[in-house]
C-alpha cells in the first residue's frame, strides 16, 4: 500500500495514538500502516490474550481471531483477555467485549471453528500476518504450512512451564517452522500446559514479544526475529538468541514439494479422539464409583502417578504414590497378583502408566476414568479440584 492509499486517522485517533505519533519510527505514516494492517491470531488463550489486547491498543485496524473454546475458570490465571464474569461463555464473545473496550476503532473478525486443513487457506487469505498462539503440534504445523503456501509471515511463540520460544517464520526469504523442527515429537512425550502447568505471566511475556514482532513487521522497523529463535527462561531471567537457518531440503519452504495442506493429526501421530484417554490410549478403565466400592472392600489398590506437590491439593485414600516419571524404575514395588487402579488428575498420565505396566507384563491394571476430577465429583466432593 502506498502512503497515499493508507487510511486517514480521525482527530480522536490522532489523540489516542499520540505516544506512537511522536515516535520517529512510527509517526503518522506508521500509525496509518497499523490501521491498514490485517493480523490473524490463532487462539484466544494464554498467548492470544496479550496479543489481542496490545495489537488492539496499538491500533491494528483489523484483527482476526480463531478460537472455539469456552472460558474456563482455570484459564483466568493467565488469559487476561477474559474475566471472572466470562466463565462459561465463548472466548470469542468475551474477546469481542474486551477488545471493543480497549479500542473501538478495531474491526474484529471472529472465526468460531477449529482450524483445519479444509478451512485454513480460506481463513488466512487476505491477512498480512498470522500469529501462532495455539497449544498443540498439529495446529502449529498447519499454521506454518498454510503461511508458507500463501506467503504470509508467521509470528511464532510457544510456552511450557517457565520457558518460552519466539520467532518469525515464513517471511519472503526466511526459514519456516519446519526448518527448525522438521517433525513433531511423538504424542505424549511433551506434556501440554494442562498437564505440566505454566507460569501465568509467561504467556504475557512471550505474547507481548509476538505482538512486538507483528508491529515491527507492519511498520518495517527494527530487526525482526526472522532467522533467529529467542529462548526465554523466566526462572533464570535469561534471554538467549540462536540462529534459525532456512533448510534447502525443507519440504515446505525449501524444495516446496509440499504443495497442499495435509492431515496434521496423522502427521503428528495423534488421531483425533477428542482427548478421551480411553480411546487415545486404548486401555481398560474403571469408573470412580466402582473403584471406590472395590477399594472399600479391599480387593483393589490405587496407584497414584501424580507428582508429590499435587498430592497436597487433593488425595485418593490408601494409595501407593509413584510419580509417572519414576514408574519404570519402581515397577518392582507393585504387586502383580492384585487388581491395580492407576490414577492421576484427569486420566491421561495414568493411562500412560497402564500402558507401561501392560508392557511390563501386568494384566490386572485399570485406568481410573477422569482422574481426581471425577473422583471428587462422584466419590469425595469434600476436596478441591485443580
Amino acid at each position: 500500500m502506498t502512503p497515499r492509499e493508507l487510511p486517514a486517522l480521525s482527530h480522536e485517533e490522532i489523540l489516542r495514538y499520540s505516544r506512537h505519533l511522536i515516535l520517529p519510527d512510527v509517526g503518522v505514516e506508521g500509525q496509518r500502516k497499523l490501521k491498514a494492517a490485517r493480523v490473524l491470531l490463532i487462539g484466544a488463550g494464554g498467548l492470544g490474550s496479550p496479543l489481542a489486547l496490545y495489537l488492539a491498543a496499538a491500533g491494528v485496524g483489523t484483527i482476526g481471531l480463531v478460537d472455539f473454546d469456552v472460558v474456563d475458570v482455570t484459564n483466568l490465571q493467565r488469559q487476561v483477555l477474559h474475566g471472572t464474569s466470562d466463565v462459561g461463555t465463548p472466548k470469542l464473545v468475551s474477546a469481542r467485549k474486551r477488545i471493543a473496550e480497549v479500542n473501538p476503532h478495531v474491526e474484529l473478525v471472529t472465526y468460531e471453528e477449529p482450524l483445519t486443513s479444509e478451512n485454513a487457506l480460506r481463513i488466512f487469505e487476505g491477512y498480512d500476518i498470522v500469529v501462532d498462539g495455539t497449544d498443540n503440534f498439529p495446529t502449529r504445523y498447519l499454521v506454518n504450512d498454510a503461511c508458507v503456501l500463501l506467503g504470509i509471515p508467521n509470528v511464532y511463540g510457544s510456552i511450557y512451564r517457565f520457558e518460552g520460544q519466539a520467532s518469525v517464520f515464513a517471511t519472503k526469504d526466511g526459514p519456516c517452522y519446519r526448518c527448525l523442527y522438521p517433525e513433531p515429537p511423538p504424542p505424549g512425550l511433551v506434556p501440554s500446559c494442562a498437564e505440566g502447568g505454566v507460569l501465568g505471566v509467561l504467556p504475557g511475556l512471550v505474547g507481548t514479544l509476538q505482538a512486538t514482532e507483528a508491529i515491527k513487521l507492519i511498520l518495517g522497523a527494527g530487526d525482526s526475529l526472522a532467522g533467529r529463535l529467542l529462548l526465554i527462561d523466566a526462572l533464570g531471567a535469561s534471554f538467549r538468541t540462536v540462529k534459525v537457518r532456512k533448510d534447502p531440503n525443507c519440504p515446505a519452504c525449501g524444495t516446496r514439494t509440499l504443495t497442499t495442506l495435509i492431515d496434521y493429526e496423522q502427521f503428528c501421530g495423534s488421531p483425533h479422539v477428542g482427548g478421551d484417554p480411553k480411546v487415545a490410549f486404548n486401555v481398560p478403565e474403571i469408573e470412580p464409583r466402582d473403584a471406590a466400592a472395590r477399594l472399600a472392600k479391599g480387593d483393589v489398590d490405587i496407584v497414584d502417578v501424580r507428582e508429590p506437590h499435587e498430592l497436597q491439593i487433593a488425595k485418593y485414600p490408601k494409595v501407593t504414590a509413584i510419580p509417572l516419571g519414576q514408574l519404570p524404575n519402581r515397577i518392582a514395588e507393585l504387586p502383580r497378583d492384585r487388581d491395580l487402579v492407576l490414577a492421576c488428575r484427569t486420566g491421561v498420565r495414568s493411562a500412560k502408566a497402564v500402558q507401561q505396566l501392560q508392557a511390563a507384563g501386568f494384566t490386572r491394571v485399570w485406568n481410573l476414568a477422569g482422574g481426581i476430577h471425577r473422583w471428587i465429583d462422584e466419590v469425595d466432593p469434600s476436596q478441591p479440584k485443580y
Partner: protein
Amino acid sequence: MATTVFLPAILAKLADAKQLQAPGETVGAVVNDVATRFPDLGERLRDSKGEPYPFVTFYLNDEDIRFHGGFAATVRDGDELTVVPSIAGG
C-alpha cells in the same frame, strides 16, 4: 576439553541440573558422555540409533548443528551446546 551443555527445564530434571560440563571432540561425543551419565536424559537427546531427533535442535554456540555436520560437528574447549526441544504450549 569440556563443553557446557545448557538444558531447558523440561530436560534439566532428568540430570538435576540446567548446565552440565561434558568432554568430547564432537557434539555426538559430548551428547554420548551426557547420555552415559544420565540414561533417562540420553533417551530424550538421541534415538535408538544414536541419531538426533527431528524435534530436538542442538545449537553449538548458537548455530544449528544440522547445518554443520550434525553430531559429527567439531567442538572446541569452552564451546556452548544448547538443547532446544520442541514445545507447543500456548
